[in-house]
């Protein structure tokens, strides 16, 4: 029998991880909802941003906040770059080609990172204290990223609902053709969307680098999970993705403690497959 304290600790860790997964899922979901293309290589962009943070902080000795900002900025630049170089030429192609173009980017980024930085695991070491309540340890290296990711999610929500360009982005995701007829410029909205999506990836990378070591195949660890969260929440549905991120991270954290890490992922993926059949439109969709 497992000590309930361990289970509680796992559950809390799950919530902490859920915050960052929510960032990733919202970024990817925003891009999918607006541009209608799934970036298979999305989490590999996160990997690049993690390397940026690692080099800035650990190798060049920048302050932590500056290294983090550099990673976020790199994320935004990468988002725009991917959109202009890869997505723009294939906007009208068959869906399978769109998937594969970003899949090719995945191969490219993984192997280029291997070429540049080898497959060694690299991590940023921060010595921060842990909070302790009744035998449960809460390391600040998890609490602070969680807090920042929740702030970012709220900021994204405000951006999409309270600003003009945010409203335009939501309008495009509802009806792309009608928006073009209204005189909006889809290309400009696509670029802003890609920049925001890349920014989320950069922020997630800047936060993850303090908890996980980075290596070229980091994307394989979180990539499939991120797609699944998006589908579980309903592709393009932001609130759904937010809820789904916490459901998945809880399953992985708790099942990982009860059985093993792999079984945690297996159970999460099986739940995903079952949920797709039970609620094809996402967990928050109304039954048709």
């Amino acid at each position: 029998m497992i000590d309930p304290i361990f289970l509680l600790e796992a559950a809390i860790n799950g919530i902490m991880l859920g915050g960052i997964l929510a960032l990733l899922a919202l970024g990817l979901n925003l891009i999918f909802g607006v541009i209608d293309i799934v970036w298979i290589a999305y989490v590999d962009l996160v990997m690049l941003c993690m390397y940026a943070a690692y080099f800035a902080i650990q190798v060049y000795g920048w302050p932590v906040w500056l290294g983090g900002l550099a990673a976020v900025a790199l994320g935004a630049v990468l988002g725009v770059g991917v959109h202009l170089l890869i997505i723009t030429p294939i906007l009208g192609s068959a869906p399978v080609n769109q998937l594969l173009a970003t899949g090719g980017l995945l191969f490219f980024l993984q192997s280029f990172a291997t070429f540049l930085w080898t497959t060694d695991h690299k991590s940023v070491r921060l010595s921060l204290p842990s909070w302790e309540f009744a035998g449960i340890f809460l390391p600040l290296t998890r609490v602070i990223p969680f807090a920042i990711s929740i702030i970012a999610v709220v900021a994204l929500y405000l951006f999409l609902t309270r600003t003009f360009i945010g409203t335009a982005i939501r309008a495009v995701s509802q009806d792309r053709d009608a928006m073009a007829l209204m005189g909006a410029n889809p290309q400009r909205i696509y670029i802003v969307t890609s920049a925001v999506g890349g920014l989320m990836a950069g922020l997630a990378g800047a936060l993850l680098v303090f908890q996980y070591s980075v290596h070229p195949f980091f994307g394989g660890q979180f990539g499939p999970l991120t797609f699944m969260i998006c589908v579980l929440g309903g592709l393009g549905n932001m609130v759904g993705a937010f809820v789904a991120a916490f459901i998945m991270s809880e399953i992985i954290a708790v099942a990982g403690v009860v059985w093993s890490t792999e079984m945690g992922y297996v159970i999460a993926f099986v739940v995903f497959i079952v949920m797709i059949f039970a609620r094809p439109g996402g967990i928050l969709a109304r039954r048709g």
Partner: protein
Amino acid sequence: MTIARAVAVAMLALLALAPSLPMGGYKEYALHVMIQILIWSFIGGAWSLMGRFGLVSLGHGAFLGLGAYTTTLLWNFWGVSPWAGALVTVVLTIALALVIAYPCSRFQVVGHYFALVTLAFGEVIRLLIIAERDWTGGSLGVSLKPAGGDSLLALQFANKRVFYYGALVLWLAGLYVWHRLDRSMARSAMEAIGEDETAAASVGIHVSRFKMGITVLSAVLTAIGGVAYAQYISYVNPDTLAGIGVSLRIVFAVVLGGMYTLLGPTVGTALTIALAEYLRIAFGLRFIGMAETIYGLLLIVIIIFLPSGIYGSVRDLFVRRRPEAAPARAAA
């Protein structure tokens, strides 16, 4: 005898005689590459049976891994012949394919959703293989126990020629299945379903039966390809035979060649394997990762500039130059 048929016969004769051609010291290596191309072309062809009708599966690694691991483990632990193992594999694959295909067609999971469900499914199989490490060796993989010399029962041969002819037969069988399907009523039904499921159902096409049938066929052939590859390499590993990486590689090769033509998957597979081998030899151990980097870059460029695949694009060019060829073919 038409020109096309004469070319086909000549190519077949060349393939049949290939192991006897003088190739100097490169013969073993050339055969090795050829065997890989034939087996992966067969697998690519199996994938394209579904893919050409809009059922884009990113989880075919699951069936590949199931086939490879089932026969390998049955042989290693109980000495069950791979022939019997392949039968077990086929039964298991049918069951597994139905588990995925039935709900997918029942609940109309199509497009991006279908791709992501199959992707999750492929990851489940890969992670299960890693989690059951007492049996499967985890992420280190497991080697096929040697039978001690050539054995038809164990499907193990020291001579690559045997595998070459076996792979050639397998490949031809795959082309035959593809051709039969291409000429059947099922193809028209599947095309209608791929265009619009509701409309297809309204003219009396049994949508879920066709979709489940094509999924099972594609999955079984993929699993058999997995058995063949495992027997040839005699080593199985979850990362090379299951999961998202290998699934994407299969899809890449097929889309590169063009999935709407008989030889498209073969052309694509031959090109990707030749490219990977060339880059591997050109860079060797000097720049780890460089070969794969160029591979990925070329894939992006090809997808952007040749959207209907290399073979498909060349053929389009040919057909567009001579528009009268198209109705003649349709009438035949």
